[in-house]
């Protein structure tokens, strides 16, 4: 790997000088190797393998100018299933400026003497360009930033320069002097140190230190970008050997009989309350039901309605055996993180991969409406089908309007993948 970035001004050396790099918060990947910067703004489960390979490739050297790496990436894009390769931008040193390769829904905007906006969308394959030598900022981002999702970040060795992020902004001449929180020389990338600049290892820090902190834009106003902690720094809290002197805040023993863990949970989304009937056994029931779902006894007449938080309305079971509680709306597909409901936090993603791609990226939506569970197709290419009678069908196509689901209903997404909706229903035969 290359040692530190050259400290002398670029003009004097005829080599590119890396400016300060800001990383935008997000669940994608930003990887910095000695002479290249790889940005994958949006990472889906299907991308993980190729993303890992791309990160490895980006750091390969020696390859001055990056032509070999660009060719290898081009080969990967050409040779792979399009849906398996994440959209990306690669910036690599090319003489006195940066060479850009961008593919898919990623936009690169250059400000300065020359204003430029490039996107992978402009090409069916990819766009390649030598960027202007002088620039104020270069921003790499996907159309919608701050993509949220369940995709676990691949476990790269972060000290090699990989951090989570949805995009980057490079602050070139002029911008660096105004806004750099560092020495102002513009030499040091505040966001990601190059590997040779490893931060001291195993930093013991006070627990209050933030993982990411917002930075001010060159204009001084807060914006969405964040500076990621130097990847070499590892937070650690030693618990064993009596070295941990910090007592955990006091918590009472769990109550006997009733549930209720005393805190510790992540802040939950807004609680939805519904009107229902409480059975003598204590279970909160759908007022439209004849009998209690737990004890099977008929619900008391007249029905006395109470408003309480809505319990989960059942389970979704995928044909590969995964189980999801229906406590909130769900979007199913190959890449449900793309759905606006998932990004906004209104729905949770359920990923169904499908080698034949008969399942769309955003295929079907399952919603909770009062005590009902409803499903609709999200304009998928191959349709969503509903069967009340098991895998044999008959299958009726679902429209883009909500259709109520009954316990035991199956959905088929495209031609292959199935999802079962079911809910807790204790047999009526118990305790007459």
């Amino acid at each position, binding site marked *: 790997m290359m040692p530190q970035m050259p400290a002398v001004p670029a003009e004097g050396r005829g080599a590119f000088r890396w400016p300060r790099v800001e990383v935008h918060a997000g669940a994608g990947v930003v990887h910095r190797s000695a002479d290249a910067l790889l940005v994958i703004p949006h990472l889906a489960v299907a991308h993980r393998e190729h993303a890992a390979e791309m990160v490895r490739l980006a750091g390969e050297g020696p390859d001055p100018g990056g032509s070999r790496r660009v060719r290898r990436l081009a080969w990967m894009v050409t040779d792979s299933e399009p849906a398996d390769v994440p959209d990306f931008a690669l910036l690599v040193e090319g003489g006195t400026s940066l060479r850009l390769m961008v593919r898919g829904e990623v936009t690169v905007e250059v400000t300065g003497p020359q204003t430029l906006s490039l996107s992978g969308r402009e090409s069916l394959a990819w766009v390649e360009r030598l960027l202007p030598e002088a620039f104020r900022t270069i921003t790499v981002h996907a159309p919608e930033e701050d993509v949220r999702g369940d995709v676990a970040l691949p476990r790269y060795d*972060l000290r090699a320069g990989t951090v989570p992020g949805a995009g980057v902004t490079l602050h070139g001449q002029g911008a660096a002097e105004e806004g750099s929180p560092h020495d102002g020389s513009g030499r040091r990338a505040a966001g990601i140190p190059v590997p040779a600049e490893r931060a001291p290892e195993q930093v013991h820090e006070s627990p209050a230190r933030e993982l990411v902190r917002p930075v001010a834009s060159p204009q001084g106003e807060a914006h969405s970008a964040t500076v990621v902690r130097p990847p070499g720094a590892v937070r650690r809290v*030693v618990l064993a050997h009596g070295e941990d002197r910090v007592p955990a805040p006091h918590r009472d*023993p769990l109550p006997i009989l009733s549930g209720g863990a005393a805190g510790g949970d992540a802040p939950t989304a807004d609680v939805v309350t519904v009107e229902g009937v409480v059975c003598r056994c204590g279970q909160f029931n759908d007022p439209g039901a004849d009998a209690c779902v737990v004890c099977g006894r008929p619900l008391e007449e007249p029905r006395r309605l109470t408003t309480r938080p809505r319990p989960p309305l059942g389970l979704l079971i995928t044909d590969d055996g995964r189980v999801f509680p229906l406590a909130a709306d769900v979007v199913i597909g190959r890449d449900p993180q793309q759905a606006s409901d998932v990004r906004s936090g209104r729905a949770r993603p359920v990923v169904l991969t499908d080698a034949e791609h008969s399942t769309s990226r955003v295929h079907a939506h399952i919603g909770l409406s009062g005590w009902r569970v409803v499903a609709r197709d999200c304009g998928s290419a191959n349709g969503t089908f509903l069967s009340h009678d098991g895998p044999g069908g008959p299958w009726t196509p679902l429209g883009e309007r909500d259709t109520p689901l009954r316990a035991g209903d199956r959905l088929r997404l495209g031609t292959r993948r199935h999802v079962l909706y079911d809910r807790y229903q204790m047999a009526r035969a118990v305790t007459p």
Partner: protein
Amino acid sequence: MTPLGTEAVGGYLLLREIGHGVHGRVYLARAESPGEDGDAPVALKLLDAPATEQGFQRVVEELRRCASLVSAPLVTIHEVGLEGATVFYAMRHHPLGSLASPSRQLPRQERVAAVARAARAAHALHEAGVVHRGIKPSNILMAAGGAVLAEPTTAHTLAPGQPLTGLGTRGSARDLEFVDPALVRGGEPGRSTDIWALGVTLHIALTGFGLYPALTSADPMVAARMYLRSRPEADAQLGPAQRQVVTAAVDPDPGSRYLTAEALAADIERLAAEIGSGS
């Protein structure tokens, strides 16, 4: 992905994967720079869900409660860390395996005694205000001095909207049986939900199979339907005392189960002693 042996997280070199649960993976790992404990390998758990600073603090708090219970038969947690957005924790490695996959065939009495120790550990956690949320045979680790219970689940502190204890992002139909049906109906995790899981685990220790036998073999959708529609039945081959303990731990009404894991532990210890005396 980087091959094992070269990949490092939090100052640990990952040697090989030794298990994966619904919320993360566990690796056999070695500290890159040996500390005072020498370079004994540890079990390093990496959580799937990316963590924010606040999420990490909640994980630390949960594990700190667990680590402070030094006299309970719980796995020793050396340290918790955060690298990037990845939460890792280093724990004592137990080479003898778990109750689910022990390194040698375990006699029945030893299996039952291991569940009793897990119940003791669960009780200690409950008294400290922690629900374990992940009790099952693969989380009961065999050790020379007696089994220990693995650390409590922490993933719920990172991702909201996962109210179903025991089922994470990779929750599978096979694991359903350890999930108290009361949770599926909207109940809160608490002592009774851990007691349910202990009851199912005890049944497996006694008989070798779970309370919903179809769960392990059938198509996952069929398995889930069975789970949602049937009442668990203890195996008919069990002795009356064994049957009674299992049944009282998995009563459909949480209020009719053992009130505390301690009471359940005492009864399981009695069962283990009876097996030992050959009666």
